[in-house]
């Protein structure tokens, strides 16, 4: 197996140090940093996401893999020429008002960033207005809401409404996820564009939303 195959495997197995060494070696062997990310690291994480959906992998393994991948991307970033670094889209992320949980949201952020998206992370306890401001400020393609508490439903609804009723409503897509939410509530009641049941699905659906635009 070549260095890059080994790298892909190391990321999938969450072997961070090994993955970093292999990244280093791949660069020394002349591989294009951009190609390492798009051709190997992102597919590695996609494969992890698929295994996750098939219940062959679980959240802890996915987090460990994502962390390994992030370490590799951090090594490569300074080597990428600016013109190559075309982002796949800009996503504003945050946990809704009244909620300080951010583990799920952070996982989405890791997965998005390592898949080539620009992410503006607003953190947790984010009021509806702040989501809207950030969407304007970053000219976002997608706004992602996370809500872990059952008490957060009204804040999800307010946030989605604030964005959809603004001048941004036509172009920015809204996706919501988190333990407290259901597809029915998010899409039918709140009027968001998509619901994701977990981080892996979230990344996939964000990609779909941008493709279908």
């Amino acid at each position, binding site marked *: 197996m070549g260095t890059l195959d080994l790298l892909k495997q190391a990321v999938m197995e*969450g072997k961070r140090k090994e993955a970093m060494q292999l990244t280093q070696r791949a660069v020394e062997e002349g591989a294009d940093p951009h190609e390492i990310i798009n051709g190997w690291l992102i597919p590695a994480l996609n494969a992890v996401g698929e295994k996750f959906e098939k*219940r062959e992998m*679980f959240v*802890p393994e996915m987090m*460990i893999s994502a962390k390994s991948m992030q370490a590799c991307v951090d090594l490569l970033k300074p080597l990428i020429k600016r013109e190559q670094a075309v982002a796949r889209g800009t996503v504003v992320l945050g946990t809704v*008002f*009244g909620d*300080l949980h*951010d583990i799920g949201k952070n996982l989405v952020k890791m997965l998005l960033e390592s898949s080539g998206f620009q992410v503006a992370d607003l953190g947790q306890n984010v009021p509806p207005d702040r989501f809207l401001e950030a969407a304007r400020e970053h000219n976002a393609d997608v706004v992602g809401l996370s809500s872990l508490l059952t*008490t957060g439903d009204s804040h999800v609804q307010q946030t989605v409404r604030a964005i959809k009723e603004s001048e941004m409503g036509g172009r920015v897509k809204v996706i919501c996820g988190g333990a407290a939410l259901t597809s029915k509530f998010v899409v039918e009641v709140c009027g968001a564009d998509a619901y994701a049941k977990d981080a892996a699905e979230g990344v996939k659906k964000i990609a779909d939303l941008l493709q279908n635009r």
Partner: protein
Amino acid sequence: MAKVVFLPWNRQIETARGETLLELARTLGLPLEASCGGRRTCGKCKVVVEQSSDPMPPPSDRERKILGDLVHKGYRLACEAKALSDLVVRIPEESLRRRQVVLTSGPRRRIPVRLRPPVLPYPVEVAEPVLHAVKGDRERLADSLRDAYGLRKLVFDPFVLREIPVALRAAHGDLTALIRNRSEAISLRKGRDGLVPGIAFDIGTTTVVAYLLDLSTGRSLAVRAALNPQVSFGADVVSRISVCQEDQDGLEKLRSAIVGCLNGLIDEACGEAGIAPAEVLEATAVGNTVMNHLLLGLDPRYLALAPYPPVLQAAQDVKARDLGIRIAPSAYLHLLPLKAGFVGSDTVACVLATGLLRTQVPTLLIDLGTNGEIVMAGKGRLLCCSTAAGPAFEGGHIRFGMRAAPGAIERVRIDPATLEPSLQTIDRLPAAGICGSGVISAVAEMVRAGIVLRRGNFNEGLRSPRVRRGEEGWEYVLSWAPENAVGRDIVVTRKDVSELQLAKSAVHAGACLLEERYGSPFRRVLLAGACGNYMDPLDALAIGLIPENQGARIVGVGNAAGHGACLALLDTKQRRLAERVAREMEYVELSGLERFSELFVAGMAFPSAQEIPGNTNLLHQPEGNRG
């Protein structure tokens, strides 16, 4: 032929004879409560008919009377409702006959208590009234107490006033006044002897424990535990807050549920001690912040809203009767102070009980429950945080998880050569599920035996019928169907391991973060709570629940929160110390911290097989008694 499925076990039975649901549940050996033994009098066997192929016959008059509004929600009495068509019946938590095993013992290390109780007996002789200088009964009693003890400006509650005339005369002038903090008369009684009973409550999200003590000697009179009846409204604090938001009467329902539970415990404990509830003269209570709010009837909804402010932090003295708690009508309930939305008076009580305010040894205290509260203390500094560990440590979100009740697997050893397990269950009954300490023990052994690898994934190359692919991914069979009480293979799944990883990693990250903030390594770890007490410290290290610090001792301290409530009952100085703890403890909010997220992901893996401490190879009973 009617087919009946009982949830939550998914057990099925077929009948053509139209038997009652209670009879069918008994045939299956399900633990459905029926205190009256099926004589249709107690109303304890409530079940919910979730589905029926044909409409059920309408509820009987008796069902309507006992169930009230519940009949509209599909509730039936199992002793009345007959299986005439295919049914799916859920047996709710409240109807489960299950003797909860609760850690009621004190800590192994006794903390010396000085008895400085709030209520003290003052024997006194009161002069007879004389015709030419009539003084009221209350005035003569107050004068005598002033002359004998220098007690001035005593307050007499109307309920005590009502006792005075009878007590004075029955005692022929020779009586004992029970006075609180030298300022208020709580009760009167004849003669000079007798107990000064008080009761301490530890109100957990799942379990409530009551300790009946004699304030004059510190002696334990009775200890009783019960399931928190609020469990039927939701297993964790957040779902109970939701009840208060969604149901207009939700707060009152939860409040009266817990008050009813406390009154039941008072009756039981007093019955055991041979005293009347009205003889109990003081009470204390600790609990997490939500439990504390619900007991006082305070709206907890802002506790779910960042930055999670509690309605109050300070200790409260309230008349027990004002909350509906039936002890002496003039007696007080003292609620210990709390720190924050997710660090309650139970954590403050743990700090009291373990003497952390004064410790010189940097110590980590972990109270394992649905929220894992962590305190780092030493040399006058106290730091605390709360990690959302989830219910895994109490057997929740685990495929075969159950609370620590008879039949729960509490300890597991796995032979690394054959991969065959040996199990220890509570009360040595056939296995019915796995409790929190059992989950930790099982996973620790699976890691040691190489069944579970570093990232929590299963070693798929093992050749053992016990390691197999099930519906939810890979799993390990702890107990084959014919050997256990549930009639299915009891397994630990990859998903269970994942739940435990998320829980242990949260606690691990919280502990590391507090240690970093504290600035020097801890030398001692105290594990509080039932799960912490029964857990083998080596298992805790094997799964990476506790950061490994060379040479740090790990000690189980039992139900430290309950013990702290007892200290506050017996010694008023402890109440002042509790205020100090609540004031001086520095609260660290984890969920906003980048560093916490880093530590959380970093702590997700299990220590590799070479790193972990070896197996004790003993199925030993930990010290301490269960109630």
